């Protein structure tokens, strides 16, 4: 196929990877191509972990941390020691469109990214608040807690960003200067979570074995060495082909339906709310 436009040898374009909606791999590649102008800046220089679904989302997928054998030589990788995996991993780094197309062509529906850049892997430049509802807590409860969190962070002079997880959560992200350890960002996120939990009885700031129904957890544990979050604009392996969608804060309100942000609707959206994410790295003051 047309080799002047991409270096990638595309394959099995007609293979259906979302059986409920009959979405093919070709459509998935097309989605990633269309979203690339917004997504590439956010992925750049960052070790990635892919979740591949070669036989579609109804069959078991698998995590691909290491660059797969047979990857073209132009795919950039970065060897980093992962404490989570307790070994050195050759991570994929995606700085250009060809690499993104190559990733999509591997049936990597989900692209996860680390919270630190490759050149400052030990020092995150993102702090993540993962707002996780325990049923019967609803997505509206998640919105409510997220807005509380926003208020709290803004009162500290910080500028938080928000995206859907593509599932039932919201992710609030703070771009920070890579001067802190994961222990510090984790502690910071934890402290804020505890603070909100004190003010709002449905919010919990700790993991517990027996998740209490109806509570909302402000999860801080993702702020760890080698852990990843779903990348902004990544597709999810859900029946509706949802997307982890960066949002303008004014859209985070009652009536927001994460399942409506999907492979079909997201490319039509003109907004680019995370455009300046990495231009606004701030200091974290841990009290």
């Amino acid at each position, binding site marked *: *196929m*047309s080799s002047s*436009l*991409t270096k990638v*040898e*595309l*394959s099995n*374009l*007609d293979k259906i990877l979302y059986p409920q909606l009959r979405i*093919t791999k*070709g*459509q998935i*590649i*097309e989605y990633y*191509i*269309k979203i*690339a*102008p917004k997504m*590439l800046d956010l992925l750049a220089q960052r070790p990635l972990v892919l979740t591949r679904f070669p036989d579609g989302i109804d069959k078991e997928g*698998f*995590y691909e*941390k290491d660059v797969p*054998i047979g990857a073209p030589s132009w795919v950039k990788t970065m060897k980093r020691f992962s404490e989570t*995996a307790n070994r050195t991993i050759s991570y994929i780094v995606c700085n250009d*469109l060809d690499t993104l*197309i190559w990733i999509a062509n591997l049936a990597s529906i989900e692209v996860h990214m680390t919270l630190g850049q490759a050149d400052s892997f030990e020092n995150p430049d993102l702090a993540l608040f993962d707002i996780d509802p325990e049923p019967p807590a609803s997505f509206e409860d998640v919105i409510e807690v997220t807005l509380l969190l926003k208020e709290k962070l803004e009162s500290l002079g910080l500028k938080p960003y928000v995206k859907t997880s593509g599932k039932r959560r919201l992710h609030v992200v703070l771009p920070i200067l890579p001067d802190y350890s994961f222990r510090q960002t984790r502690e910071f996120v934890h402290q804020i979570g505890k603070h909100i939990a004190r003010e709002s009885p449905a919010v919990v700031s700790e993991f517990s074995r027996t998740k209490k129904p109806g509570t909302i957890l402000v999860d801080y544990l993702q702020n760890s060495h080698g852990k990843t979050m779903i990348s902004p604009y990544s597709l999810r392996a859900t029946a509706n082909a949802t997307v982890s969608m960066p949002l303008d804060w004014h859209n985070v309100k009652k009536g927001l339906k994460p399942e409506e942000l999907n492979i079909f609707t997201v490319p039509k959206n003109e907004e680019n709310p995370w455009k300046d994410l990495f231009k606004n790295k701030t200091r974290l003051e841990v009290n």
Partner: protein
Amino acid sequence: MVKPAEPRISKRPIWTGRITIGLVNVPVKLFTMIFDKSFSFRFLHKQDGQPLKYERVCTKDDKVVPWEDIVKGYEVAKNEFVVFEKEELKAARPESDQRIRIDRFVDFLSVDPIYLDKSYVLTPDKSEDAYSLLLNALHSMGKAGVGRITLRTKEYPVLVHVYKGALVMTTLRYAYEVADPSSLEELKDLKEPDKEQLRLAEKIVSDLSGEFNITEYEDTFKEKVEELIDKKLKGEKIVVKKPEKEEAKELMVALQETLKQLKKK
């Protein structure tokens, strides 16, 4: 360059569950450790070098049959089938209960290798202490556990034994899957050997006795084919052309758009 990498145990377990011995549980993960490294070739159309595809064609009218119109049949007599629906087969299949149930322990060497089928390596699943205990007990006593597991939708008898510092689970063949050679006519009237000759035969065997070392054996056909592939690659290579379909065209339009946008930046 074409040589396949040494088999490497995947990071992804194919099954997680626990070994149960009476009331004792050892949570474990199961990984594939046997890799078929034999060569496989694809059929190509000689004239244009393109791969062939298989189609399911009805033997009556030679028309291609779509998947939704396909059912399974068991041939009970020549051209006589009992038809099964997917659901009927599903209902008959055992449910996986995430357990390797050990019924008893036996001397490992007493298990005839004829019954050994496929081996999987077991690793502890946050159960290092219990795992180590079982591993060391089996090792020092030369024992293996016999039990069963349901993998996917099939139940297998299994042997849990020690291999190179790991617990390994080997599925076993059912007794009915192994033919009994003692019924063979040719073996029925074997004569007792002459004592002198037997002693001589035993001497030959003992002279050639040594340690078992599997790495002495190499797959010479595989090596030759690998060599050939390397040579062919240096010469002409057949590149598989992908059919250009509507979908592919749409992709290219999107790609052109995006390239333009990225350039503007």
